[in-house]
C-alpha cells in the first residue's frame, strides 16, 4: 500500500483552501506562484505514482479498511498505469492553464486559482479512484468547479448562458450516472468497482437491470465527453469560457468522460456482456465515428475561431471513443497515446487563440487597440504548428495514436474507420489552418485587444503553448508504456484479484510497443497535405464562392440555430442520445 496514492487529490485541495485563506493578504503574483507550486507538486506526486505502477496496480484503502476475505468494506483508490497517467496529464494541462491565467483572465484573483486547483483535484481523483460512488463525487466536483469558472466573467451574457447550459446538462448527466450506480448497488450490494465486477460476473449474463445501468452510466459519461449528440453544451461553453478553463476542457476534461467509460466497462461489464460485446463495440464506434465526421465538417463551416476549436475538440473525442470502443488492449493503448498527444496540442491551440486576441467572449469587446506584430506572429506560429499536429503530422503523438486506433478498429472488424479518421484529421487541420490564413490575409480582421492587454507580456503564454507542443511530440516515445498499460487495463480478473485479494498476477505476455509503420507515416503525411490544400482552397476566393454557398444553405442555417446555446436543446439531445443507446443495448444484450 503506497501512502502516495491520495496525495495528488489532497495537495491541490489543500492548496485551494490555503489560497482562499490568504487571498486578501497576498499579492496577485504570490497567489499565482503558490498556485503554480501546488500544481507542480501534484504533477510530481502523480509522476511518482506512475513510476510505482510499473510493478502493478497500487491499492490504497482509506482508514486502513482493507477487504476481509475478499469482500471490500472500505473505499479504495486503485491506481493502475493509465489512471496515474491520467493524473499526470491533468496536472500538466492544469499547469499550463494556471501559468496563463494572469495573462488571459482579467482580474484573476485567488478565487480563480482556487477553482482551478479544485478542478485539478477532482480530475486526479477521478483517474485514481477504485470506487464507483467516488467516481460520481469527483465527476460532480469537476463539473461544479468548472462551471463556476465558466460563469467567472459576469459581464458577458454569453458566458453566463454557457455556464447555465454547462451546469444543467452536466448535472443531468451526473444524475444518470447516479441512477446507474443505484441500480448496480441494488443488484450487487457493492460500490467498489472490483467488487461489483466480481458480483455481476457470478450472475453469468447481463440481466435487464444491468443493461439499464450500463446505458445510464454510458449516457452520463458521454455527456461529460461531449461527443455528438451530447456536445451542445461544450460548443457553447468553449465559445465563452475563460482561456484556462477552455484549455482544461480541451486537454483533459473531455478525455476523462471516455476514460470513465473504459474504466467501468473493464472493471464491471466486460464479463457479463462478454457474449454480446459486439453490440457495445458497434454503439461506441458508431457514436465515435459520427462525432468525428460531424465535428470535423462543422469545424470547417463555422466561422468563429473559438467555436471552430470547440468542434475540433468534439471530433477528436470521437476518435478517442473509437479507440476505446474497439474493446481491445490495442485500442486502449492507441487512445491513451492519442489522448496525451492530442490533449496537449488542443491546449496549445487555445494558448495560440489567446495570443491572437480571442481570450474574451465576443460580447465583452475590449476598447480597440491593435495587436502588436510580434505577438501576432507568436500566436500564428502556435496556431499553424498546432494545426499540423491536429492533422496528424508524424512528429507529434497524434499521428501515432490515430494510426494505432485505425489498426485496432480494423482488427475489430471496422476497416472503414481508417477513411473516417483520415477525413477527420484533414477537416480539423484545415479548419484551424484557415483561421491562421484569414488572419494573415486580412490584417484588419484580426480582433482588437484591450490596451492593458497590449502591455502585458505574451512570452509566457507563448512558452506555455510551445511546451505543450513539445509534450505532444515527446509522447510519441511512450509506445511501449502504452501497450503494457493497455494490456493491464483490460485485465479484469487481474484487477479484481489485486484490489480484493491483495495479490495479482500481471499479464506476462510480452507486448510489442506501438510504432508508426511506413504506411502510417505516409497516410498521416497525406492527411496533413489534404488539410493544407483544403484550407488554402477555402481561403482562395475562387473556391470561396462554393464555401459561401455551403455556409448560406438552409441546412447550415438550421445547424447553426441548433448550436445557438439553448439549454432545452442541449438537454433534449442528451436525453435522445441516452435513450437510443439504452434501446440498442436492451435489444441486443440479452
Amino acid at each position, binding site marked *: 500500500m503506497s501512502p502516495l496514492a491520495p496525495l495528488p487529490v489532497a495537495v491541490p485541495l489543500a492548496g485551494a483552501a490555503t489560497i482562499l485563506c490568504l487571498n486578501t493578504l497576498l499579492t496577485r503574483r504570490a497567489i499565482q506562484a503558490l498556485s503554480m507550486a501546488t500544481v507542480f507538486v501534484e504533477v510530481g506526486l502523480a509522476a511518482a505514482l506512475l513510476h510505482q505502477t510499473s510493478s502493478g496496480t497500487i491499492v490504497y484503502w482509506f482508514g486502513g479498511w482493507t477487504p476481509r476475505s475478499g469482500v471490500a468494506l472500505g473505499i479504495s483508490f486503485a491506481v493502475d498505469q493509465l489512471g496515474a497517467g491520467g493524473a499526470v496529464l491533468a496536472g500538466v494541462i492544469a499547469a499550463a492553464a494556471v501559468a496563463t491565467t494572469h495573462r488571459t483572465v482579467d482580474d484573476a484573483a485567488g478565487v480563480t486559482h482556487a477553482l482551478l486547483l479544485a478542478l485539478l483535484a477532482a480530475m486526479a481523483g477521478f483517474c485514481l479512484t477504485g470506487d464507483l460512488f467516488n467516481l460520481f463525487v469527483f465527476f460532480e466536483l469537476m463539473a461544479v468547479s468548472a462551471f463556476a469558472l465558466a460563469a467567472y466573467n459576469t459581464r458577458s451574457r454569453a458566458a453566463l448562458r454557457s455556464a447555465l447550459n454547462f451546469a444543467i446538462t452536466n448535472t443531468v448527466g451526473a444524475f444518470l450516472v447516479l441512477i446507474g450506480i443505484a441500480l448496480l448497488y441494488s443488484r450487487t450490494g457493492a460500490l467498489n468497482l472490483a467488487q461489483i465486477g466480481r458480483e455481476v460476473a457470478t450472475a453469468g449474463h447481463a440481466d435487464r437491470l444491468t443493461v439499464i445501468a450500463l446505458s445510464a452510466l454510458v449516457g452520463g459519461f458521454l455527456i461529460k465527453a461531449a461527443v455528438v449528440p451530447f456536445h451542445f453544451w461544450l460548443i457553447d461553453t468553449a465559445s465563452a469560457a475563460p482561456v484556462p478553463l477552455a484549455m482544461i476542457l480541451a486537454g483533459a476534461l473531455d478525455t476523462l468522460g471516455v476514460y470513465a467509460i473504459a474504466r467501468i466497462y473493464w472493471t464491471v461489464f466486460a464479463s457479463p456482456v462478454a457474449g454480446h460485446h459486439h453490440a457495445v463495440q458497434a454503439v461506441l464506434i458508431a457514436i465515435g465515428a459520427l462525432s468525428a465526421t460531424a465535428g470535423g465538417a462543422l469545424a470547417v463551416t463555422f466561422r468563429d475561431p473559438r467555436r471552430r476549436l470547440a468542434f475540433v475538440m468534439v471530433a477528436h473525442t470521437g476518435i478517442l471513443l473509437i479507440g476505446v470502443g474497439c474493446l481491445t488492449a490495442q485500442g486502449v493503448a492507441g487512445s491513451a497515446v492519442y489522448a496525451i498527444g492530442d490533449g496537449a496540442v488542443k491546449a496549445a491551440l487555445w494558448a495560440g487563440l489567446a495570443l491572437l486576441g480571442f481570450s474574451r467572449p465576443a460580447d465583452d469587446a475590449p476598447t480597440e487597440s491593435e495587436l502588436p506584430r510580434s505577438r501576432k506572429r507568436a500566436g500564428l506560429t502556435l496556431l499553424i504548428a498546432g494545426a499540423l499536429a491536429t492533422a496528424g503530422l508524424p512528429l507529434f503523438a497524434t499521428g501515432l495514436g490515430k494510426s494505432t486506433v485505425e489498426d485496432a478498429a480494423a482488427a475489430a472488424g471496422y476497416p472503414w474507420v481508417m477513411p473516417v479518421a483520415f477525413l477527420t484529421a484533414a477537416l480539423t487541420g484545415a479548419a484551424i489552418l484557415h483561421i491562421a490564413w484569414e488572419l494573415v490575409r486580412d490584417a484588419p480582421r484580426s480582433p482588437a485587444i484591450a490596451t492593458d492587454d497590449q502591455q502585458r507580456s505574451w512570452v509566457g503564454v507563448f512558452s506555455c503553448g510551445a511546451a505543450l507542443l513539445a509534450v505532444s511530440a515527446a509522447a510519441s516515445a511512450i509506445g511501449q508504456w502504452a501497450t503494457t498499460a493497455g494490456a493491464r487495463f483490460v485485465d479484469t480478473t487481474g484487477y479484481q484479484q489485486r484490489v480484493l485479494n491483495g495479490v495479482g498476477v500481471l499479464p506476462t505476455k510480452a507486448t510489442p510497443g506501438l510504432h508508426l509503420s511506413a504506411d502510417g507515416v505516409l497516410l498521416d503525411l497525406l492527411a496533413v497535405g489534404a488539410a493544407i490544400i483544403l484550407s488554402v482552397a477555402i481561403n482562395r476566393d475562387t473556391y470561396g464562392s462554393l464555401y459561401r454557398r455551403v455556409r448560406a444553405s438552409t441546412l447550415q442555417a438550421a445547424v447553426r440555430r441548433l448550436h445557438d446555446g439553448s439549454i432545452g436543446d442541449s438537454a*433534449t439531445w442528451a436525453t435522445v442520445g441516452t435513450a437510443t443507446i439504452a434501446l440498442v443495448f436492451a435489444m441486443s444484450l440479452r
Partner: protein
Amino acid sequence: MSFLPYAVAVWLFVVGLYGIVTSRNLLHQIISLSVVQASTYVLLLAVGFRSGGAAPVFADIPTSRPAVDPVVQALSLTDIVVGATVSALLLAVAVQVHKRTGSLDPEELRRGPE
C-alpha cells in the same frame, strides 16, 4: 416489494426533464433540475428499503434485528450536498443574468446569428 417507489422515481425524472427542456424561466428550470434530482433520492432509498426494518442505529436495538441499508442513506446525503451546491451556484448565475439582462427567460439568452 412494491414497484411504487420505482414508478415515482421514473415519473419524477421524466417530469423534471420535461421541465428543463420546455422552461421559459430560469428559476423554474433550476427547480426542475432539483425535481430530476429528487428522483435519485427516491430511487436510492427504495433500493435500500426493507419492510419491517428498523433505522440502522444499533445503539439501542439488538444487532440481530433487521434494519434498512445505511449505505444508501449515506449516498443520499452526499447526493443532497451535491445538489445544494449545484442549485446555489445556478441561482447565483441566474441572479447575475437578471442583473445584466433584466429577464429570466433562457430563450432570450440565445445568441444571435453568427
